[in-house]
């Protein structure tokens, strides 16, 4: 062979890329031979030109032909794949189900995490916005900055160009006879240029110029005016105790769900700051915008220095500092909550937990695929062997098998996205977050799906495809190829699957036990019949006279559906008070003043001392057991505690000890309760215990009397059980999320086991039938089948329980009151997994065992 030029070699390589490599590569040789011929006859220039045409034309034709051939092959292998998937309908269904559930969950988690990252990012100037906080180093607490700071900064320092103070207050809108409660945001005119909340109707005029201008949110405008444009109309809104009329200046576009700032209406801050906006004694939330040329980090660093002169002018100014926090980080920074009443920020942990659950479930579904593909190998031996004999090379079979996985994966992706869309409302409920679904027109979801496809595809497809394409045709045809069921790799995978399932079951059990434990630590009595009526916040002080409250109470007591009613000065659980212990240290305890019927209404048991109805001393104290343990030495009865009574300190004797009760979160340790019986105290809350049978009528008549007593106010009531449940919303949500994911995991693991049993039984059908013929009973055969899998489940349990113990031990450490991690929880989880696995295997094998063995033996 003559020495080939580089060009020649390159062309040979290029043409050899197609099918029939050998033949197409000769085209390059032909072209070169022809080139030399052309040079001789036509001259160098023409030869060069003609050869160029030759190369380009050849490539063009070969490319078309190659593509057509490829498509033909693709069609072919697609047909083979579909045929195989159809023949193994059950396994395809198991894989599709598992993968699509896993993908649906992943897509939902993706939506959740994406929302976390794009939170507040819709503001055009998000990088230049920041929240101002104040810190008191003497007492060590955080507070919102002083009201005049914002305007002062804008006029004095060149870095800060705009400032908006925010004060939110609930108002009541009156339309004809209905009252609507809404949250209003008082702010400065800069609000409109700082934040990106576009207006649907109206213009963002400077509302400080004219009084009583109001902007409504889209939601509220819809509620009141439906689709009409309300600009210029007047509505009545009550802040405090008087209705004022406001002119509607504009309506916002619907608020993005990823906004930390939420409001129903916006108006000038003048309405909310009673002492005027220029009083340094008032504090209010403050956002600033820095100049476009300034660097945010630079301003943050120098902010203390910039604001020093203002603080120096204040009393105790040397202890105070102002700090700046970029708004960009607001959603994921819990620290900023001190300075702002915006939507609570999220914890990054929730994203991590959700993502890892999604990962686990994806892993389980992938394992199913691998296991079923490997175990199902026996039935494809002939198929693949024959194809190899007919000339298929390993690469082609590998590609076809990969394509098969691709089809399944693609189908489950489509199913998964549909499923995710379907279950989104459920997911929103679970996470208590307004997660927005990804729009399919945006690239991020496609990127995510592509990444998922590659990840899951490489996880599931490569190993089985490698294993199957390695099959040698000669061995298969001579019947020498044996696939034993004892592939250690797939056995390890089953163990892993069950370990994950059991781990999640343990988590579910422990979390829900802790949840119930916390709920159970509140009153023993059933609180779903006790209603709290809040007068202190909904009725203005001048209308809330004690005579009216007593009238109201008398009316409620006279209702047939009511069994008890009591008044209290504070919410259940009391107000925080500082009490000095024997060493003189201050501790926070919760105290309230109540009337005589408090204990009977709430069903509190008195552990020590006498019932309040019987005591002669009206102003007697009751303390909770916890309080008594912590602050009182010896017998608490008769000892005195210093309390404020009618603006003076008095020592009041303890009359009794009640059982512990608490409606505040028990995550943190609390110091207990002090309850003072004082019929003449200033009450603001009523607690009503209803008889079960006539509750709805009683509630409606109470409501009617309430509106008669206090017209134009909202009846603010909640059942105590609901308010307790609200406190533990977070725990109950997590317990539900983990429970659902545990059931999904167990379901996927079991469906995999189901498929494997099916395969194993088909393989061993002959053996089982012979055993039956020779006299083995159904139980013995069952034992034989079960033995194969239950050992693996047991091993999975052994792995999972210690892990679950360690993880939950750490989790429980965060709670002041916690349940015990007893052994039976793990035993229960093991039992559940065992029984479900045994049932799955058993039901499948029963079918074979019960058929006539003669029938099975005749098949061959």
């Amino acid at each position, binding site marked *: *062979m*003559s020495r080939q030029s580089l060009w020649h070699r390159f062309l040979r390589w290029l*043409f050899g890329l197609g099918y*029939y490599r*050998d*033949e*197409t*590569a*000769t*085209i390059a*040789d*032909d*072209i070169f*031979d*022809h080139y030399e*011929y052309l040079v001789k006859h036509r001259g160098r220039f023409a030869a060069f030109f*003609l050869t160029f*045409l*030759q190369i380009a*034309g*050849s*490539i*063009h*034709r*070969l490319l*078309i*032909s190659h593509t057509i051939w490829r498509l033909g092959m693709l069609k072919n292998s697609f047909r083979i794949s579909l045929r195989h998937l159809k023949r193994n309908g059950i396994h395809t269904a198991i894989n599709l189900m598992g993968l699509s559930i896993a993908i649906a969950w992943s897509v939902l988690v993706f939506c959740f995490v994406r929302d976390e990252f794009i939170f507040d990012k819709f503001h055009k100037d998000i990088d230049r916005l920041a929240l101002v906080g104040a810190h008191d180093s003497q007492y060590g607490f955080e507070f919102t900055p002083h009201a005049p700071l914002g305007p002062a900064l804008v006029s004095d320092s060149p870095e800060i160009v705009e400032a908006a103070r925010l004060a939110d207050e609930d108002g009541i809108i009156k339309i004809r006879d209905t009252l609507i409660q809404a949250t209003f945001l008082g702010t400065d005119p800069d609000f409109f240029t700082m934040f990106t909340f576009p207006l649907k109707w109206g213009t963002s005029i400077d509302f400080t110029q004219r009084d009583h201008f109001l902007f409504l949110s889209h939601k509220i405008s819809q509620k009141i005016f439906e689709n009409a444009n309300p600009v210029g109309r007047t509505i009545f809104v009550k802040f405090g105790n008087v209705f004022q009329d406001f002119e509607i200046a504009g309506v916002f576009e619907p608020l993005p769900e990823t906004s930390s700032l939420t409001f129903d209406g916006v108006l000038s801050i003048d309405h909310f700051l009673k002492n005027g906006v220029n009083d340094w004694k008032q504090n209010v939330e403050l956002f600033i915008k820095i100049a476009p040329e300034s660097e945010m980090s630079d301003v943050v660093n120098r902010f203390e220095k910039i604001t020093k002169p203002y603080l120096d002018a204040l009393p105790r100014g040397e202890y105070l500092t102002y700090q700046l926090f970029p708004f960009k980080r607001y959603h994921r920074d819990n620290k900023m909550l001190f300075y702002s009443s915006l939507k609570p920020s999220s914890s990054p942990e929730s994203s991590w937990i959700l993502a890892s659950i999604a990962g686990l479930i994806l892993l389980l579904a992938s394992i199913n695929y691998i296991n079923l593909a490997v175990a199902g190998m026996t039935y494809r031996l002939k198929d693949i062997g024959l194809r190899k004999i007919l000339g298929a090379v390993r690469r082609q079979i590998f590609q076809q098998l990969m394509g098969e996985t691709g089809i399944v994966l693609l189908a489950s992706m489509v199913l998964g996205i549909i499923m995710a869309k379907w279950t989104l409302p459920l997911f929103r409920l679970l996470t208590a977050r307004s997660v927005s679904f990804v729009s399919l027109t945006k690239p991020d979801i496609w990127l995510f799906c592509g990444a998922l496809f590659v990840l899951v595809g490489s996880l599931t497809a490569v190993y089985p495809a490698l294993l199957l394409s390695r099959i040698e045709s000669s061995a298969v045809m001579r019947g020498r190829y044996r696939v034993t069921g004892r592939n250690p790799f797939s056995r390890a995978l089953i163990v892993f699957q069950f370990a994950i399932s059991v781990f999640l079951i343990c988590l579910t059990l422990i979390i829900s036990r802790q949840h119930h434990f916390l709920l159970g630590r509140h009153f023993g009595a059933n609180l779903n019949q006790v209603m709290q009526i809040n007068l202190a916040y909904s009725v203005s002080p001048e209308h809330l006279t004690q005579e009216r409250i007593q009238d109201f109470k008398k009316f409620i007591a006279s209702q047939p559906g009511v069994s008890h009613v009591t008044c209290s000065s504070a919410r259940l659980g009391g107000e925080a008070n500082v009490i000095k212990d024997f060493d003189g240290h201050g501790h926070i305890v919760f105290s309230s003043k109540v009337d005589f019927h408090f204990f009977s209404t709430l069903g509190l048991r008195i552990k020590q001392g006498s019932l309040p109805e019987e005591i002669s001393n009206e102003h007697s104290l009751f303390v909770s057991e916890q309080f008594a343990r912590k602050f009182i030495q010896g017998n608490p009865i008769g000892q005195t505690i210093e309390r404020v009574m009618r603006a003076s300190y008095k020592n009041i004797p303890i009359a009794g000890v009640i059982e512990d009760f608490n409606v505040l979160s028990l995550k943190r340790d609390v110091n207990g309760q002090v309850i003072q019986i004082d019929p003449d105290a200033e009450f603001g809350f009523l607690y009503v215990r209803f008889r079960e049978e006539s509750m709805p009528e009683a509630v409606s008549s109470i409501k009617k009397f309430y509106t008669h007593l206090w017209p134009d106010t909202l009846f603010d009531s909640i059942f105590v059980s609901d308010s307790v449940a609200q406190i533990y919303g977070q725990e109950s949500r997590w317990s539900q999320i983990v429970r659902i994911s545990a059931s999904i995991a167990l379901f996927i693991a079991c469906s995999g086991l189901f498929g494997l049993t099916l395969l194993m039984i088909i393989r061993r059908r002959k053996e089982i039938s012979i055993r039956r013929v020779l006299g083995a009973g159904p139980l013995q055969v069952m034992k034989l089948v079960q033995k194969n899998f239950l050992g693996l489940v047991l091993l999975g349990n052994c792995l999972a329980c210690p892990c679950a113990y360690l993880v939950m031990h750490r989790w429980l450490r965060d709670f002041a009151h916690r349940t015990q991690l007893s052994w039976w929880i793990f035993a229960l989880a093991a039992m559940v997994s065992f029984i479900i696995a045994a049932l799955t295997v058993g039901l499948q094998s029963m079918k074979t065992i019960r058929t006539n063995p003669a029938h099975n033996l005749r098949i061959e």
Partner: protein
Amino acid sequence: MKTLSKPDEILLLTILRLDNDASSIDIVRDIEDRTGKIITFGALWVSMDILTKKGLAAKRMDEPGESGGRKKIFYTVTSEGIAALEASRKLHTKLWQGIDHIIDAPKDVS
């Protein structure tokens, strides 16, 4: 039988003319000499591949040694190919019958 397309017909006829055993280079050069049309080697290979699959032509790989020290593909027309050419010619004559008074028959082709 399907009628041959013009390019296929040209290819098959050229192979026959070249003693029914022609390499790609021979075919390309002969066609260029005779008709002035330039066929690329890629197009030739693709067309001949299709014709081979149809059974109208056959190809053989000439191993190196006697012919210039490299692999070469040689094409031949099979008996089916010849039958197809015959059918094509018949069709041609039939189609041209009675047209002579409008379009004169060519006198000299070369």
